[in-house]
């Protein structure tokens, strides 16, 4: 039955790239209420299967999707066509199958989405079981994405969830462009930053430097820590992207090495001494593995020795793990709250069935219950969601020279750069087979490689930053060739 409504890949592609999917971006004051307008092309046989209200699986959701309202998105068109379009057409990617991801998959599956994919590189651990409700003790060791997808499909019939057991960087950038919306259930700033840079790399600007609606890849991001959490909507080019408000995630404070070595005062200092200094002294060349219980035990007993030496109280095995692995406490309830908020916003952004969050929700249950909505603003000069860093080049500059240039560019500081132009790989660092295939381009002028286009967007990926703060990223560059006829206004 389901097969009838599946579309061939090429069919789907034409919807993704064509004009049928429109992002209606509408501005009132600084408030932006974006939404995806869905194509109403679903087979009539499906639509006419109007189920009698109480006997329908979508009994409750239908109230929201089939009935008109006044407090809705500007292009909301209630009806069975909308419901069926959500069911059959919209593709949602969930990043992370952990505390948030498990909840998100369930919540999205019950919000009318049937084409879900989930990506997670982790395997199930015993410490996940207090909140990641799709996993059982017998699942420990199995890939999270696979088990989570299977469990939700078992219980919510009609839902198709494709799991990806890999790192987010392992997928080609084009993989991410295949989804209408990306929902993030992550616990790391680096991973959020990477996905954000990927989603923003799809963004195109018109000649007036306004974002092209059809190129906007919406993201809904959630995060929790203990009793606190946040949910936000990111519409690249319209609302602040992750990088515009990166100050919301201050870097973790590290102890100065001299404190650890000379004037330890706390249990954590003793633990970090054992972990960062003593380990290397005692195990020449052997890397510390936080997941190896023997390694952890060694650090713990060394920390105890040091604490005893200085009369410092409080070193426990649990604290040792917490400090070394930088464990963030996590509970089921907060994950449920934040995921539910994200799933609901996803439904509203896609269907327009209600107003949406503008644009950042914080939840704090420590002292009483506090929720707050903040409307953050974009950083107009953002390197990631802005129109792109302007690079002026001579037409003679080779691809190799161009890559070297990015390394020294003060705003970019990019190393291990791969370059793509209009979906074509100009140079790829990895895998080796691609590297070999593209290596010969290095000595060719970039101008030739971009078919002598005077100015255009070139996408690069690589590692940004200096020293040990490097992280994967994707950047959009506006390359302009000097001396070429550039009277087409392109914004600067």
């Amino acid at each position, binding site marked *: 039955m389901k097969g009838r409504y599946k579309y061939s890949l090429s069919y789907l592609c034409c919807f993704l790239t064509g004009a049928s999917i429109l992002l209606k971006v*509408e501005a009132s004051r600084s408030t932006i209420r974006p939404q995806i307008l869905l194509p109403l092309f679903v087979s009539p046989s499906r639509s006419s299967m109007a189920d009698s*209200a109480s*006997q329908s699986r979508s009994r*409750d959701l239908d109230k*929201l999707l089939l009935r008109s309202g006044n407090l809705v998105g500007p292009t909301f068109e209630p009806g069975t066509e909308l419901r069926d379009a959500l069911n059959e057409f919209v593709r949602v990617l969930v990043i992370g199958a952990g505390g948030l991801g498990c909840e998100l998959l369930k919540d999205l599956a*019950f919000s009318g989405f049937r084409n879900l994919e989930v990506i997670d590189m982790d395997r199930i651990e*015993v410490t996940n079981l*207090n909140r990641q409700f799709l996993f059982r003790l017998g699942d420990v060791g199995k890939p999270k994405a696979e088990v989570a997808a299977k469990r939700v499909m078992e219980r919510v019939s009609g839902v198709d969830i494709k799991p990806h057991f890999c790192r987010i960087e392992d997928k080609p950038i084009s993989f991410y462009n295949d989804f209408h919306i990306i929902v993030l259930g992550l616990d790391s700033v680096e991973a959020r930053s990477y996905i954000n840079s990927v989603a923003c790399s799809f963004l195109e600007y018109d000649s007036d430097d306004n974002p092209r609606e059809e190129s906007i890849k919406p993201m809904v991001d959630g995060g929790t820590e203990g009793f606190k959490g946040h949910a936000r909507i990111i519409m690249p080019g319209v609302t602040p992207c992750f990088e515009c408000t990166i100050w919301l995630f201050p870097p973790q404070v590290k102890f100065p090495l001299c404190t650890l070595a000379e004037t330890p005062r706390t249990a954590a200092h003793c633990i970090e001494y054992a972990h960062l200094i003593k380990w290397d002294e005692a195990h020449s060349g052997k890397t510390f593995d936080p997941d190896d219980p023997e390694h952890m035990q060694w650090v713990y007993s060394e920390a105890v020795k040091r604490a005893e030496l200085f009369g410092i109280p409080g070193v426990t095995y649990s604290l040792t793990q917490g400090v070394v692995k930088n464990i963030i406490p996590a509970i089921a309830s907060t994950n449920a709250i934040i995921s539910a908020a994200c799933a609901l916003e996803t439904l509203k952004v896609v269907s327009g069935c209600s107003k949406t969050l503008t644009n950042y929700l914080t939840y704090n249950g420590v002292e009483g219950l506090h929720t707050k909505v903040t409307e953050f603003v974009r950083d107009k000069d953002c390197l990631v969601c802005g129109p792109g860093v302007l690079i002026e080049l001579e037409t003679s500059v080779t691809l190799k020279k161009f890559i070297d240039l990015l390394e020294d560019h003060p705003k970019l500081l990019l190393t291990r750069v791969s370059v793509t132009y209009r979906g074509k790989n100009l140079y790829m660092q990895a895998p080796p087979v691609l590297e070999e295939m593209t290596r010969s381009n290095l000595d060719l002028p970039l101008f030739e490689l971009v078919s002598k286009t005077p100015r255009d967007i070139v996408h690069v990926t690589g590692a940004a930053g200096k020293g040990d703060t490097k992280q994967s990223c994707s950047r959009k560059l506006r390359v302009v060739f000097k001396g070429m006829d550039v009277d087409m206004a392109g914004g600067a």
Partner: protein
Amino acid sequence: MAEPKVKYDRQLRIWGEQGQAALEKASICLLNCGPTGSETLKNLVLGGVGSITVVDGSKVEVGDLGNNFMVDESSVGESKAKCVCAFLQELNDVVKAKFIEDFPEELIETNPSFFSQFTLVIATQLVSDSMVKLDRICREANIILIFARSYGLMGFVRIGVKEHTVIESKPDHFLDDLRLNNPWPELTRFTETIDLNTTDAVVHKHTPYIIILVKIAEEWANTHGGNLPSTREEKRQFKDLIKSKMITIDEENYKEAMEASFKVFSPRGIAGANLQKIIDDGGTEIDSNSSDFWVMVAALKEFIANEGGGETPLEGSIPDMTSSTELYVNLQKNYQAKAEADFLVMERRIGNLLKKIGRDPASISKTNIKSFSKNARKLAVCRYRLIEEEFNSPVQPELQKYLMDEDHGTLQEANSLKVLPENTAAGLYILLRAADRFAVNYNKFPGQFDGVMDEDISRLKTTAVGLLNDLGCNSSALSEDLINEMCRYGASELHAVAAFVGGVASQEVIKLITRQFIPMSGTFIFNGIDNKSQLLLL
């Protein structure tokens, strides 16, 4: 580590072994196991509560398959309580799970003593009348109650308990208890052994800021008639005084001292603090019926008036700061010794008070007294009105304030750009109650069935206006759009809304059972339209 300890590791880091033990002792009853109820309970079963009892009289319908994860196709026609209970058991086999196939409304009417066996009752999707009745039953039996309800894009969560007292409120940000402006004799003596004018550069830059500030505060007081800085100018001068003691400009300990100088300026004792209110409010007279908490508050009041000299027992811990190991550890010991001494005084006073009211002087454990002494400045007391009182006579000025929308009228143009009025949450609250009244009159919820929307909208409007008049409020505050919206919802229970509401309810349950952190006050209205939810203090 044993397996359960590993399994609960991430939550033990929040509420500790004691909190976990309280959860494992708790016996929880859930009324109605639609998505709101089953999601609430799911979060608690995962955390390892002792036992659950699921009460629901209905059978699983096809419609339930679209919003409830705990039922599946094979469940259709079966008892919903049974199916949900079976799934929940699968999540955590150490939880004792059972179900009762009965309608909660009937239990409330015919068997009120049923609820006395539980630690806590979670009542979901109950209409106003049943809420009012159950609230009375639980209040009389001293059972903790929490209501949770999802209705279209809105939600409602309310705690029902006469009084909830918290010792370990674990606030995120709380001023350290350092007594920089009111040092006890041993601390003064300790600081006297240290010379800030030492010429040893290494010693100088490893003197902890506590010592720096205690000494400079004393120096200041000596030259200012015993007073500490109070004006902005004086505070600036005080910081300059700290700066003048630096040998080089990169001395971290002196920078920390300047940043922490506000701790010197903060008032001594408990004047103006939340604790003052608690002491004034409950600690007057205690008798044999008083709870341990109030007995300890009475002892605390005595302590502050006597040994404390206006201060509470010392907390006893110090934050990390630049220092030599030796000075830091010795300072830490000094604080701990004072805290221990204060605890012993508290223990003696509590013993005496217990004797006076005819209880065993050792009936409050040392652990509890120690925790109370340590957290004395952070105590919290939450009280909740009977829901009947809130429904019949809400706090008038508050309700008026919530219903008032400053932008009202200007943003009501019928265009799609309009911003939701600020009073939306309060409007939803009124309309949910109006919907219940509607249900009593018309035997269905507004918009529950298709085809009669216009009639339902006008009937709901009339009902809501009637309700507002009964509450003595001006009814013009309700927007037509919101009335419309409420009818559109037609009493639907959307999964994502239920998961949010259930998440909130379960988090409050955890705070209530562990007696850690501070539960919400008032009535929480989830606004799923633009997420501007609100706590209404009615």
